[in-house]
């Protein structure tokens, strides 16, 4: 790697301090830089703590600006070298660079990494690029220009029309056109109107809203202000998941900063627009993300959904007209105002415009947050951007939309990700969770996992969801234990259908989706469990046994030493044996056998 022209005064070290990177040690890296700078008396180089870059699997991440050199998985021990060789020496440190998993080549520049190159970052435009705790940093990046434009040049009607023209649809799950929703709220009569930002994000596996709140809270606040202006709301609430302490902290800082700048309060920027924002920490329930339950929770009542109509636009928080939007929806708004509805609508498919963030996890090489234009195929996201299946295993399925979504097999990899196409398959865009699975995942077990989640999180108000999902869960539990029968398979499907069409709110209506799609695409696996008592993935422990192959076993005793329950016996140098009755099927013996003598029998 050649020497590059580093002008010291321009150097800035961007350290990701999103939750993911903090967990992998960003705070220690941060401290090491400060320490090192102190030791060497360096004061011209800024350390900027940014929000999440989305490439969480590679954390802690640092980017050296202005060139944009990307160092993944940095440890505190690497810091002295980075300061010495790169910042002072002007030399890119080859062995610390990111290596592309498919080509094996080193990629020095942030912008050249496949993970980023193929994304279109609108919502995540500032994440990783600015210090989320500094409002001036946001403003330097064009922040609050959209607010200024709206307040000085546009009527509320024009704002609504602009958002309508952009065809932006709600990113909270249902995909309802945002402009139309605003129009309802704007036209509703009421002395007071409320605007709520839904930041409850309870889907397991979804963390896009958290990253936006942690990495660019002002984009959400600006979106809220514009929405409030458009519908005529004077008070805004952010209902944020209490289990997101960093997001809560950064939101609080951001609200303080905007107040000081005069963007909140009375006669904002000299206009007649008044608006205040309150932060309400969530009650720790998935169902509180459902809009009517959320409002009940803000009002201090038990978070249970209620029948709609009346819709929030007619009668919402404290009976007043209310507009609820998701974090990601709102983070799009300022961009649309500045760049124009047409530019936004030019991205995506006919009916799904703009971009969507997906949280890709599971058996994938480069998991993280990925923002792509609507209509991008599953294959592009999973293989081109995220590098494909971990350890180059066979792709088996992808679960999209979390516990409300569906599970799709390989033949759907070329499905474009948009609201209509995914709904057709039985999955949903949902909030954007994407779990990649290889052959080691058992579909029945996964169905059981999701049902256990929805059952636990059901509010218990309506019968199909309260009791129905419990009975579904029990059937699936029996299937994973080989205690079920073919009749139950039919019953499970019927019950799933009934729950889907008869539950009160979206939680119950979508809870059967994982099971129904798995039935559609992986029915054989269910049948194997039920008819043959067989789990091909070797996950359902009661359907499998660990066996030592007599002819391969050398009697070394390693397995015996590691077995936590003493289920293995055998003389030295003699073939060992596993006592099936004692074995708890943890698989530790198999991991440790140096001769691969232990296998899983179904």
């Amino acid at each position, binding site marked *: 790697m050649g020497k590059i022209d580093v002008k010291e005064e321009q150097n800035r070290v961007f350290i990701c301090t999103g939750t993911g990177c903090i967990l992998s040690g960003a705070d220690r890296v941060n401290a090491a830089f400060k320490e090192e700078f102190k030791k060497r008396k360096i004061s011209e180089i800024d350390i900027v703590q940014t929000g999440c870059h989305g490439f969480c699997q590679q954390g802690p991440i640092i980017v050296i600006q202005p060139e944009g050199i990307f160092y993944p998985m940095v440890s505190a021990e690497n810091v002295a070298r980075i300061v010495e060789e790169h910042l002072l020496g002007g030399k890119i440190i080859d062995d610390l660079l990111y290596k592309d998993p498919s080509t094996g080549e080193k990629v020095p520049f942030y912008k050249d990494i496949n993970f980023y190159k193929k994304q279109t970052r609108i919502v995540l435009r500032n994440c990783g690029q600015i210090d989320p705790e500094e409002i001036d940093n946001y403003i330097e990046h064009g922040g609050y220009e959209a607010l200024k434009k709206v307040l000085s040049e546009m009527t509320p009607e024009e704002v609504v029309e602009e958002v309508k023209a952009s065809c932006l649809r709600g990113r909270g799950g249902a995909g309802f056109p945002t402009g139309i929703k605003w129009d309802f709220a704007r036209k509703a009569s009421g002395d007071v109107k409320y605007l709520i930002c839904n930041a409850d994000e309870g889907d397991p596996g979804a963390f896009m809203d958290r990253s936006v709140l942690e990495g660019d809270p002002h984009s959400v606040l600006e979106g809220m202000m514009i929405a409030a202006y458009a519908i005529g709301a004077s008070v805004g609430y952010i209902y944020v998941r209490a289990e997101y302490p960093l997001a809560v902290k950064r939101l609080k800082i951001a609200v303080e900063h905007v107040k000081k700048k005069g963007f909140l309060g009375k006669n904002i920027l000299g206009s007649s627009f008044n608006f205040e924002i309150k932060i309400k920490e969530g009650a720790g329930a998935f169902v509180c993300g459902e809009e009517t339950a959320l409002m009940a929770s803000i009002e201090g009542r*038990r978070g249970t959904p209620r029948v709609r109509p009346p819709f929030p636009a007619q009668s919402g928080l404290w009976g007043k007209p209310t507009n609820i939007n998701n974090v990601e929806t709102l983070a799009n708004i300022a961009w649309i105002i500045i760049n124009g509805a047409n530019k936004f609508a030019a991205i995506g498919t006919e009916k799904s415009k703009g971009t969507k963030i997906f949280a890709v996890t599971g058996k994938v090489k480069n998991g993280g947050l990925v923002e792509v234009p609507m209509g991008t195929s599953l294959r592009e996201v999973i293989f081109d951007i995220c590098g494909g299946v971990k350890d180059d295993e066979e792709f088996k399925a992808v679960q999209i939309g979390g516990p409300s979504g569906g599970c799709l097999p390989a033949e759907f990899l070329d499905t474009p990700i948009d609201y209509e196409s995914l709904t057709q398959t039985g999955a949903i865009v949902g909030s954007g969770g994407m779990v990649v699975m290889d052959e080691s995942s058992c579909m029945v077990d996964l169905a059981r996992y999701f049902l256990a989640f929805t059952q*636990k999180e*059901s509010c*218990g108000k309506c*019968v199909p969801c309260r009791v129905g999902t419990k009975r579904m869960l029990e059937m699936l539990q029996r299937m994973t234990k080989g205690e079920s029968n073919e009749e139950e398979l039919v019953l499970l499907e019927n019950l799933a259908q009934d729950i889907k*069409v008869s539950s009160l709110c979206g939680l119950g209506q979508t809870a059967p989706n994982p099971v129904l799609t798995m039935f559609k695409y992986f029915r054989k696996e269910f049948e194997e469990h039920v008819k043959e008592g067989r789990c091909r993935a070797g996950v359902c422990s009661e359907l499998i046994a660990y066996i030592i192959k007599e002819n391969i076993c050398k009697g070394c005793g390693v397995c015996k030493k590691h077995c936590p329950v003493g289920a293995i016996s055998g003389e030295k140098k003699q073939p060992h044996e596993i006592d099936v009755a004692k074995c708890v099927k943890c698989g530790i013996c198999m991991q440790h056998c140096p001769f691969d003598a232990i296998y899983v029998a179904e």
Partner: protein
Amino acid sequence: MAKINLVINDRKIETEPGKTILEVAGENRIKIPTLCHDPRLKPYGACRVCLVEVEGARTFLPACATEVIDGMVVKTNTVPLYEIRRTIVELLLSDHELSCVTCESAGQCQLQDLAYELGIEENRFEGEKHTYTIEDYNPLIERDLNKCISCGRCVRICEEVQQNSIYTFANRGFDAIVTTPYDRSLIETKCELCGQCVSTCPTGALTEKMSRYKGRIWEIEKVKTICPYCGCGCELEIQIKNGEIVRVSTDVESGINKGNACAKGRFGYDFVNHPNRLTSPLVRKNGELVETSWDEAIKTVADKFSKIKKKHGSDAIAGLSSAKCTNEENYLMQKFMRAVIGTNNIDHCARL
């Protein structure tokens, strides 16, 4: 008022706006089953057995919470709806203590009735069942959560009608359950023991302790009367077996109270057959109270009043009338005090 037209089960119906599908169907003798509905309460839409098909709607809609609109085409009796109702009732029964043989509510239980109507002989669903042991040592209301279907009617009537909010739901999912503050007995809460919750409970989860084993609903005779306790004039249904009151109920369709009543009206009937109850007048002779005729009793009172009036004047006498009397009786009482006794010293217990 503007009329609207709709079709329910192929029948053309004309009605006024502002009503729910359930109300309009009921007025036209089209039965839609319900469990969580009570006309005294706001629509809740939780039990899902009243789901109906509405042409053009994306999903089935709860009849109890959906207002009729002009041109609406509704079906209440299709095969898919029947399937859903069946599934729901089977699900409820799969976590229900089926002790109908001795249950106080047998014969007047909406769950039992619906299971019967749907012909549920076998339950396709089985699994974990709750076994709650709730010892609520209040004297009047038996709470058996093993028969609770979480319809929320008790929670809502206590909040919406009584404004007392004793009950609430606790827990989530399968374990969601109605409870009291800190799980306490009703008498350790602000409960007024009005029994409104008992009156709305569709199952045997809330019943009257005083009526236990006293009489089945099909054995009793119901007599409608006006509550004797206060001037409100609530209508009560006195349930009688073998000439004895075994229970007091109310009818949500009639009376000025439309099914509501207070603790006295609902539970204060034990005086009727009480051995200490006075059934003839008594006068004191030689320091002892002895039975006498009405004529003699009235004469005694009249004589004594006359004497007092003569000796001390009319204002030495005062009258206090009772809320248990009718309006007419109270009118007569004050007339008597003013015109016959000659005093304005007349008052009424309801003013105290």
